């Protein structure tokens, strides 16, 4: 499956590389768009030294970690949120006559290699934050774990967003609240948000495990909301549960499509 994915992705990249000027232009513009969020963080910290108890570099660490996960998923699976577009254009049928799962085909459809620029930008911010923060290196093992956990969560969110579009074909924008909204949410320390919201994105949709809970461990900070210490390590379990639910929702979505024939 992974092999098929990369072969498909490679074919798209090769096709795009036939227009090198456009390819590099889009890569650079991708970096600029992603840099806007960093610019906002920098503008905010041009006016203050701490936001809800967190310093600029700590916020950049949280931003960087979540953004690496997000941009990798944005590159590899974000096309899943085109389900509604494909249903409306009647092109979803084309995916269903092929011997490979529709999920895999949709994820790779028009795979866009230029998004690698955003991954590099996010990686650079994370690298910068790690270099300037005085971290306890015995806790550094958590960093790759949280990035991978974040990828699983974002992939699950995109899958859910795609599945949702089988039902909400006329309103695909709703699903971007989940994916891009989760990215927006995880750019800042959760201490800025209301207690109820944080409760919801911890126990209902486990967005707190993208970077907040494990990030607190890496930074050696206590949770301002007072969740117990073991919550810092629950990320992988929460991500797996969400992934499982997303897979079920996706199957349900495809089944719904095949039984309504829209």
């Amino acid at each position: 499956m992974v092999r098929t994915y990369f072969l498909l992705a490679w074919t798209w990249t090769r096709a795009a590389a036939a227009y090198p000027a456009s390819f590099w232009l889009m890569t650079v513009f991708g970096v600029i768009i992603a840099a806007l969020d960093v610019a906002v963080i920098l503008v905010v910290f041009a006016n203050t030294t701490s936001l809800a108890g967190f310093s600029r570099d700590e916020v950049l660490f949280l931003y960087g970690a979540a953004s690496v996960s997000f941009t990798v998923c944005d590159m590899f699976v974000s096309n899943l949120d085109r389900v509604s577009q494909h249903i409306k254009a009647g092109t979803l049928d084309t995916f269903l006559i092929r011997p490979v799962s529709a999920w895999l085909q949709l994820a790779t459809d028009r795979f866009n290699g230029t998004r690698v620029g955003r991954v590099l930008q996010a990686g650079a911010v994370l690298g910068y934050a790690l270099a300037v923060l005085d971290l306890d290196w015995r806790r550094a093992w958590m960093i790759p774990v949280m990035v991978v956990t974040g990828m699983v969560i974002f992939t699950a969110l995109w899958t859910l967003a795609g599945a949702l579009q089988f039902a909400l074909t006329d309103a695909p924008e709703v699903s971007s609240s989940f994916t891009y909204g989760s990215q927006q949410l995880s750019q800042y320390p959760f201490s800025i948000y209301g207690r109820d919201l944080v409760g919801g994105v911890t126990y209902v949709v486990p967005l707190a495990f993208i970077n907040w809970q494990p990030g607190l461990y890496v930074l050696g900070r206590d949770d301002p909301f007072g969740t117990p210490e073991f919550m810092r390590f629950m990320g992988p379990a929460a991500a797996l549960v969400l992934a499982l639910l997303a897979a079920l929702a996706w199957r349900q979505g495809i089944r719904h499509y095949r039984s309504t024939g829209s």
Partner: protein
Amino acid sequence: MSSHIRRCKTIPLYARLVRYGFRKHATYVWAALAGAFTNSVFGVLRAYILIALWQTRPGLAGYDVTDAVTYCFVTQAFIGPMQLFGGGLGIPERIRSGDIALDLIRPASLQLSSLAEDLGRAAYLFLVRGFPPMLLGAAMFGIVVPTDPGRWAAFLAGFAIAVVVSFGWRYLVALSVCWLVDDRGVAVLSLVLTTFFSGLMVPLHIFPGWLGDLAAALPWAAMVQLPTDLYLGKAPVLETLAFQAFWAVVLLALGALGTRAIRHKVVIQGG
């Protein structure tokens, strides 16, 4: 005499196009409501950032916390009517398909008829995508609601000019397709300039130093920052409206030049 007859025919035409734009978008109710939902969700997330900042810096930029929250939801309400993420005009597709030639041979001006349709679209989206974020903001955090009718009048005037400025800019972006092989670059550039320099992400007043001065002078400030300041009563009314009108006129004039150039290119060079 003849000019009088012409005016009689022209005004109903454009009024009709405004109505057509309104009704055309009214058929996509679900898409508009979904947009309103998304704008509201992002409004909440942005509000928390501004609240956290204004808690550490009360009175920053002359706003209090409630002003900052209001700022956030009013600007979210602008996204739909002003199409701040780009698009909203069918022109790029029509240029690519070659149908633009049909539009250009019509007796009515392409620019004015696009503007009329866009105003209809904006009016519809103002109702459907404007109110939900404001209502949610009011319910969750409480927002400023002006009681002075003069301030409402100033805001509505500023908002209307802002829609024209946004049209003026998007029209130029749309026409650029005619000269570019790959128009995605311009679309992205426009997105970056519009979202950052309009004040959609954070108020332009808190941009540091020269960046703030620059942003305040550019046309994008006339789209989001200034009408919102009119709403909050934080800007001198006449000067603000004059600044917005200046940019509206400049962009429309550039658009008129662009329309002439594209007609020349399509009609004389045959696309």
